[in-house]
């Protein structure tokens, strides 16, 4: 079934036991009765789109929702049907991780688990509506280690309403004490329209300024602890970068299946619509699910390459993005010590990385009008 050139596959499992207030992903709470039908549909979509994949898929990423909340039997069935890959990542929430689940993942060929720890502070976990407490996070981590996982990532969120710098330091220390191979650290984004923003928006606006210091603290602490700051929000040791995500940042093509999943192949990007019933019924009929299509002109892909590539600590080959770069801005930014050119590559300096958004916006050449959509 695999004749195409796409080497990266994303699989979306939307189910969660409850919805966290800050979350704006495509998620569905409960609905255990749907898990089986959903996995059927996923497999059908995979069957349909499979020809786009190469025979040697490099990475598979199972994200959610809470993939590990999926009925174990269905999860097992799905994992068994996924193409083998060098890296198979699964997102997990601490409260779902039992020794049995860890063993199931292991047996299903999963090589890497990304554990949504978020914080080790009981009160802040409460603010985030997280179900697991700090001990639950630690327990889940050890279950995974015990099952033999040697590539575990922890997700941390900072800037939680009420979080003091000392609290952030404690969280980082707790996380480091577990010795994860990889850490993703995100500033809490209060997305408009979420319940969370409604409840905490004012507090977040108040602490916006101190958030600058939080980001610096995260980066400094993790680098001190021997981690590589290889992407704006991601840190690893022993070369354990998240290979699937790296594919996004390097502008590679990827296929995504499941509701809300996005694929980018050649000059086209499409996104499955998030409604579950229509997804299920279309695939039950053997048809592609309803989608939004977005053509990607060559220049747009180059701009994305620039936007994503500058998030990494590896130089971005200048020749690949030159067309999208405003040379005058480049000169200015070099002068300000925010951008560096090294061996034919473009690289943000340490300070430049903290300002990556503004730097990239300035670096981008004027976007031709016909390129807006």
């Amino acid at each position: 079934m695999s004749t195409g050139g796409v080497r990266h596959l994303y699989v979306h499992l939307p189910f969660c036991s409850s919805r966290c207030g800050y979350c704006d992903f495509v998620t569905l709470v409960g609905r255990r009765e749907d898990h089986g039908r959903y996995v059927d549909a996923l497999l059908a979509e995979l069957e349909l789109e499979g020809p786009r994949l190469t025979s040697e898929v490099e990475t598979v990423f199972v994200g959610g929702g809470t993939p590990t909340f999926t009925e174990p039997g269905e999860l097992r069935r799905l994992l068994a049907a996924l193409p083998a890959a060098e890296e198979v990542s699964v997102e997990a929430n601490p409260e779902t991780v039992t020794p049995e689940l860890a063993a199931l993942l292991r047996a299903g060929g999963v090589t890497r688990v990304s554990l949504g720890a978020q914080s080790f502070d009981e009160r802040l976990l409460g603010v985030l509506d997280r179900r697991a407490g700090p001990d639950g996070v630690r327990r889940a981590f050890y279950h995974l280690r015990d099952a033999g996982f040697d590539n575990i990532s922890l997700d941390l969120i900072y800037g939680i309403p009420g979080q003091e710098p000392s609290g952030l330091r404690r969280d980082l220390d707790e996380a480091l004490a577990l010795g994860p191979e990889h850490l993703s650290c995100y500033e809490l984004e209060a997305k408009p329209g979420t319940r969370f923003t409604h409840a905490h928006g004012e507090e977040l606006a108040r602490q916006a300024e101190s958030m600058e210091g939080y980001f610096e603290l995260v980066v400094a602490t993790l680098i001190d602890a021997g981690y590589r700051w290889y992407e704006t929000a991601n840190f690893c040791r022993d070369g354990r970068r998240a290979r699937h995500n790296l594919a996004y940042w390097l502008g590679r093509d990827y296929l995504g299946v499941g509701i809300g999943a996005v694929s980018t192949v050649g000059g086209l990007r499409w996104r499955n619509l998030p409604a579950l019933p229509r997804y299920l019924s279309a695939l039950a009929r053997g048809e592609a699910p309803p989608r939004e299509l977005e053509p990607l002109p060559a220049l747009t892909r180059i701009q994305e390459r620039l936007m994503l590539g500058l998030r990494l600590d590896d130089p971005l080959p200048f020749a690949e993005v030159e067309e999208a770069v405003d040379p005058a801005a480049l000169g200015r930014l070099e002068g300000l010590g925010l951008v560096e050119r090294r061996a034919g590559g473009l690289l943000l300096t340490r300070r430049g990385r903290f300002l990556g958004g503004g730097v990239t916006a300035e670096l981008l050449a004027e976007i031709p009008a016909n390129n807006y959509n």
Partner: protein
Amino acid sequence: MKLDRIRNFSIVAHIDHGKSTLADRILEVTETLSEREMREQVLDSMELERERGITIKAQAVRVAWKGHQLNLIDTPGHVDFTYEVSRALQACEGALLLVDAAQGIQAQTLANAYLALENNLEIVPVVNKIDLPQANPGAVAAEVAELVGEDPERVLRISAKTGESVAEVLDAVVERIAPPEGDPEAPPRALVFDSSYDQYRGVVAFVRVVDGRFGTRDDLRAMAAGTRFEAEELGFFSPVRTPTDTLEAGEVGYVVTGLKDVSRLRVGDTLTSARQGASQPLPGYKDVKPTVFAGLYPTDSDDYPELRDALEKLKLNDASLFYEPETSQALGFGFRCGFLGLLHMEIVRERLEREFDLDLLVTAPNVAYRVYTQGGEKVEVHSPADMPREFERVEEPYIRATTIVPKEYVGSVMELNNERRGRFDHMEYLSEERVMLSYDLPLAEIVYDYYDQLKSRTKGYASFDYDVVGFEEGSLVRVDILLAGDPVDALSLIVHRDGAYARGRALVERLREEIPRQMFDVPVQAAIGSRVIARETIKARRKDVLAKCYGGDVTRKRKLLERQKKGKKRMKQVGSVEVPQEAFLAVLNLDGDKR
């Protein structure tokens, strides 16, 4: 029409005292216009005029009353248009001085009354709005009678709104105002007291014929400008344009000139026959000079050609508008414009924005300075950016300011005028309650936030008027604002040495608040020459990056970035600093008048 059957008159009044309403009622009472045709405030034709309740362009309407031809010459009601008012008054033999029965005499009542007296007009005092519950016709009539030296019994008491006693006003015009004098047999002479521009027919001059007779197709000459043209059409307003074959001594009407440029026929000029013309022009012509200047810039620099075209068109209608191209590092391409005063500036700005749909940035207004360089040369400076940093001395324009306030606010006005470098001239009780204060003030002090201050310190009870009286030496300095070491030309000021620190400090603080943090520290400084008098720092941003970005949201993140990019494009680049339009607006507003 025989001279003794003609009466030419104006209505002069303070703003909102009911001049336009009375004009409307006169058209109605004389059946010049049926009620059906009656629009409210017919004479104020421009939308803006109606909305602001002021008349900008004078017009003349001919009405018939009991066998007489009455010409009502409408005048602008504001100080900025004093010259136009005085030309309009020169075309009349009398004026109705209209005063609100509730408010009494106000500053412009005085200014206009004096103007009318200077022009030797017969003044017919009229107290209007006697129907208002708070009207006090008796007291106000006494005030007005005192002002013009008339018997209080002879002060008419009317309501233009209800029409009460409006007919008596017309009778008084016939009885009290003298018929025009002039020689119907002499070579023709007519005073141009206003003009307008018709896009099809060119300049239309409003004239008062003094001597002789003008006929359609006559070749005419404007004596001051030397311009020659053919009278394509003669006529009068009734109130619509009504062509006629001749305009004779004493009559008021219009001349269609076909000229394509208002500056070739200025208000105050004298028209005569091109062939057997008069040898002496009518007295009183002068070239009006702008007193207030400001830079006008399009908010979107792409709109520069539109702004240029719009100014050209406005200029066709408004000979007193002055403009020349100006380039600002900070604001790009724009124009330095000269105005007769602050109201004139506001009107031009509003017309540009409203009639031409332009988004404008207007720099802080300043006055014209006379700078004497060390070489002894005299330069007139219209923009702070053109002010030499070294000079021998500077002169600035002074005004004679008249303020009328209830007596309890006299102290507040004096205090304000003292803060603004005012010199007390004299003070007069108009009545037991109301006082007139006369001060000499630098015009520059009025241009900056004066009206707001006056209004708030007198709870809105003050009325104010001024006249430019001359130039005087002042202890003035140029203050520059620097962003990251680069001067922002649009924000330079010329201020009195004593006020330099406070103004510089206020600007610098405001800029620190308004300019978003950049990717580097930005010092904001105010300096006189190389001496920094105030400094603030906009601290560099330490973080500007999207927290996360994965395969599912590349499009959204790209669009965020595009938006950020577009936001940058809207900013003005000053040296290395990006300054949003809003920051300039905020700062210029702080500096400008906020009426």
